């Protein structure tokens, strides 16, 4: 029996669409799961709110609570000026959240465990912060790299550190999500493989397989928590970075 814990991250071309300068653009399993995210998110936030009930049902309550939660998070981080980014932050949060949650189903594919996806999302946030920061504050925006209250003779040391920490943001922002998803899914797969291996090893092994099975149950609960927390972390870091674009003074 061959169980490869990495196989679940494999992208497969389902349908080759274009070939641009030797770069293949295809409809992949990853693309299908991204569209699935769009469909499920729309079902929750458009389908479940279609009745516009004054007294909401369960799904409408979920939609409203998510809305209010993200709105409160963004407002607390950036103040009322940041609410123009609300649709973006909301979309980012639900995209990552549903990507994570879909991935927890066995045999599914987790879009957010692809480094290419998380890097693009993090870079979009990064460039949004840079461009909006310059557009709104002009050159005053570079004050972001000059912390207030630091003696002038420290600045030659502090400013490069601040610039470096700013430039590495997309790395930490994207790798945090990617690594959490990757590690969680590999762990689940490895413990799942233990069950099958032990169960195939005779009667004693069948009893022994209870242990990794219990572990998988616990890990599923943990993964569910990690999925939601990482989506929240991704969203709140986006809020904090956007706050730097709006209020560059520390």
């Amino acid at each position: 029996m061959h169980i490869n814990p990495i196989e679940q991250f494999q992208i497969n071309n389902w349908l080759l669409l274009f070939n641009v300068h030797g770069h293949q653009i295809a409809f992949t399993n990853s693309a299908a799961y991204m569209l699935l995210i769009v469909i499920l998110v729309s079902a929750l936030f458009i389908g479940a709110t279609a009745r516009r009930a004054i007294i909401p049902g369960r799904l409408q309550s979920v939609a409203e609570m998510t809305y209010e939660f993200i709105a409160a998070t963004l407002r607390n981080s950036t103040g009322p000026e940041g609410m123009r980014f609300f649709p973006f932050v909301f979309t980012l949060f639900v995209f990552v959240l549903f990507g994570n949650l879909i991935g927890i189903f066995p045999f599914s594919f987790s879009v957010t465990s692809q480094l290419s996806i998380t890097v693009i999302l993090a870079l979009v946030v990064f460039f949004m912060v840079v461009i909006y920061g310059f557009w709104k504050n002009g050159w005053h925006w570079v004050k972001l790299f000059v912390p207030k209250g630091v003696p002038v003779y420290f600045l030659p040391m502090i400013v490069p550190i601040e610039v470096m920490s700013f430039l590495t943001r997309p790395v930490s922002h994207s790798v945090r999500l990617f690594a959490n998803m990757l590690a969680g899914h590999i762990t689940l797969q490895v413990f799942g493989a233990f069950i099958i291996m032990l169960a195939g090893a005779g009667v004693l092994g069948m009893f022994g397989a209870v242990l990794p099975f219990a572990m998988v149950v616990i890990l599923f609960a943990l993964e569910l928590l990690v999925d939601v927390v990482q989506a929240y972390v991704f969203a709140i870091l986006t809020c904090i970075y956007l706050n730097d674009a709006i209020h560059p003074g520390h």
Partner: protein
Amino acid sequence: MAAPTTATTEVPAGQSKFPPFQSQYYPSQFVWLALSFILLYVLMSKVALPRIDSILAARAKRIEEDMATARHFKERSEAANTAYEKSLADARSRAQGIANETREQQAAAAEETNKRLESELHQRLATAEQSITATRATAMGNVNAVAAEAAAAIVERLIGKTPEPHELEAALGGAGKS
């Protein structure tokens, strides 16, 4: 563990790299991420979020209206209660006034009746006294005549001779007078 399972992340010979680093899929990933994310952004910002916003606003408005209506009714009930208590107090004081007035009227009427009856009684008393006095005088006159007749009869029996009326008169004059 001689099983063919590979528990390591090493790439088996002849196979491609670790999937997240397989760069031949990056263009597809980018295109489909852009498409689905923009689609989701449009759906959220144009449909879902304004709708949820309007639902929340409608609910807040409804709650406020209901609260205002409730406040209005509360005020009305309090006003009605005050009016009721006021009219109750008015009625009570009016009833007391009427009772006092009636009592005074009746007392005055009783007083008048008493006076009238008293004076009538006095009058009757006086009349009665007068008639008693007259009757007594008449009775006393009659007594003298009866005494004179009785004395004449007694004397005649005793001495066989009828006394003269003026002698009788003289004899009885003192007794009648005393």
